[in-house]
Structure formats: structure tokens, C-alpha cells
């Protein structure tokens, strides 16, 4: 991501590797929103997502010198956070359902449309959590993060036909859940 006047990813990486640790703050500010959203959708829990992304940033900082293509820093960060999410999912026991997966509590101050939207989001998140981690990852990268299959392949290390198949299966499973609730 390059914004006019803002340093490019490659420039930030060079500054951090040159000893300017503060420059890593640019990386965090630039990518944390997207990574937190991705991790939240993967893990179904904002707290677990914050832990996974924080761990991911720390790992990225420590191993920044191994980032071979600094101008593709975003892809590299997503790969790290994806692995942190998989690690969290592997550690989580089968019966461990994150607390904030529960549907949002209705706030009388919210409008009816807002409440309906919150309920829909809870339904979709539950349906997403019901998918296998591989399918969930593929769907979120494709439809939530808006990545191309080529970018997804670079992040996950999977072949494009495999990713396409996972996205297709995820769509089919989600549609079934959504149809069952309408």
C-alpha cells in the first residue's frame, strides 16, 4: 500500500533494518486494521485475534531481515498472521467456543436496522466458524480481504486450483446456512 507522501513499504523496511525501530510503527498503523479483521474472522474472537496479530507483528519485526521482497510486505505479514491464527486454532480445544462469538446483545439505543445488521453479522460469523480452517481462510482472504487468487497463493503456499475449490466449497456451505435461516 503506498500513499502519496508516505514512505513505501520497502523504505520502511530499510529504515527499520538500518536501526530505526520506531519506523516499525508505520507498519503497524498501515496494516493492523486489515490483519485484525482477518484474524477476527478466522478465530471468531477479537481477543484471540489481537493476540495473534500482536504475535505476528513481533515475529515480523524480529525476522524482518528475512523478508525478501519488502515491497510485498503486506503479503508477507498476512502469511505470518495466517500461521499465527492456525497455531491458535490448533491449540484451541474442540469445545472451546470464544465468548464473543455469542450474538450481540440488543442495545435499545441502536436502531432497528443496526440491530438486524448485528444479528446478520453474528449469523454469518457463526456460519464462517463452522467451516474448516482451510475453507474459512480461503473465503476470508478472497471475499473479506479482497485478494486475488495469486496473492492468496503467495500467502498460503497453496496452488490456485486448490484455493478456488476451497472458496467454492465455502460459498456453498455458507449459502446453505443462510438459506436455512431465511
Amino acid at each position, binding site marked *: 500500500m503506498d500513499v502519496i507522501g508516505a514512505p513505501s513499504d520497502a523504505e520502511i523496511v530499510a529504515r527499520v533494518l538500518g536501526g530505526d525501530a520506531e519506523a516499525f510503527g508505520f507498519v*503497524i498503523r498501515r496494516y*493492523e486494521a486489515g490483519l485484525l479483521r482477518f484474524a477476527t474472522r478466522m478465530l471468531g474472537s477479537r481477543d484471540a485475534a489481537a493476540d495473534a496479530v500482536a504475535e505476528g507483528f513481533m515475529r515480523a519485526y524480529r525476522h524482518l531481515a528475512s523478508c525478501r521482497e519488502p515491497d510485498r510486505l503486506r503479503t508477507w505479514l498476512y502469511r505470518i498472521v495466517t500461521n499465527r491464527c492456525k497455531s491458535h486454532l490448533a491449540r484451541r480445544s474442540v469445545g472451546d467456543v470464544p465468548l464473543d462469538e455469542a450474538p450481540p446483545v440488543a442495545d435499545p439505543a441502536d436502531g432497528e436496522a443496526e440491530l438486524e*445488521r448485528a444479528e446478520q453479522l453474528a449469523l454469518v460469523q457463526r456460519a464462517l466458524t463452522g467451516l474448516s480452517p482451510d475453507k474459512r481462510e480461503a473465503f476470508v482472504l478472497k471475499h473479506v480481504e479482497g485478494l486475488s487468487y495469486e496473492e492468496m497463493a503467495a500467502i498460503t503456499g497453496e496452488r490456485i486450483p486448490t484455493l478456488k475449490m476451497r472458496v467454492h466449497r465455502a*460459498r456453498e*456451505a455458507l449459502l446453505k446456512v443462510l438459506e436455512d435461516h431465511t
Partner: protein
Amino acid sequence: MNTIDPRIHQVLDGELPADALPAELRDATEAIRAAADLLAAPVPVRSLESRVMAEVHRPAPSLARRVTGWLATPHAITFRVRPVWSLAFAAAAAVLTLFYARDVGPQLGEHEGIAQFVGRFPDARSVHVVGTFNDWRPGTIALQDLDNDGVWTATVVLPAGTYEYMFVVDGERWVPDHLADRLVADDFGRENSVVIVRPVHR
């Protein structure tokens, strides 16, 4: 699996223009897009910058501290062993156990032997063995069923000889052991079991 029309996937993958889709398939496409829009909404969480930068500025732990931390942290250790080696290990363990058990077992006198009592009493709460070796006194030699499979056992060291015995189930029911070496009639018209204890050291 709820397979959907492949054209829906083609539109969502950008391989087919949306207006090429028949009207009856557009709802599914819109449902997926709407779900993705909901999930794409920003997640309201506190920025991680201060948390991460605090870690960035923290001095790296010394080598000794890292080694200590590694040693103090639980690690899963996985062994990949061929089944043939598993069997070999099991056989070795069995042999060692036998040797060990022989070393620590009861020291038998020259004229003593071992009697093993086994009875199947699935619903029993307690089983004792009484006989000529304990003057038919209940409560002195208890059988055990450690795995709760209904099979009660006791191993007793006795002077070599021939003994009559019975089981006492739940402290009140006297039952002969039909698996005994033999059965003999007692003076009360019942049958007693007979066990022959042979000396271990000849």
C-alpha cells in the same frame, strides 16, 4: 454438499459479468456478497501499536535466560516408531518386568507355595475367601476387583498342603469355587472347593 450453479462461482470470481447470470441465480450471488460485506466491516479493537512497540523496545533476553525459559516450558515430544520396534520395546519391557517382579516378590519359605483365588461375581460389593487355612473366618482374606470387570482375585502365600475353601460374597453368601482343582462334600450337605498348594522351592 450443497453444490450451486457454477456460473455463480464464475461471477463471484470475476470470470463472468454479473448481467450474464439468469435472474433466478442472482439472489445467491447477492447473498454471498452481502455476507462478505458484513464480514468486511472494520473490527472495533484497540490499536496494537503501543503493545507491539513496547515489545520491540524491550531488550532481547540473554542466552542463559532463553535456555532457562526453553527448559522450563512444556514441549510436546513425538516419537515416530515402526510397529516392529513397538513390539520389540513391549517385549523388552515385559522381560524386564518379569525379572523385576521376581526380584521383589514375596520371599517364600522352603515349604510354602502360592494359592491364587479367582471368582466371577459381577454384582458383588465384597468377596472374601475362607477355608481350612484361616479356620473359616470371614473377613481375613479379601479378593479385589481393581478394574471393576466383575472378576475378583487374591494371591495368598500358604504352607504347602491341601485346603478346603469357599468364597463369601457381600459378607453373607457362601459360594463354592467351581473352577477349583476339585470339590468335596462338607458335613452340612454343601460342597467345598479344594486347592492344593505345592512348595515353590523343592
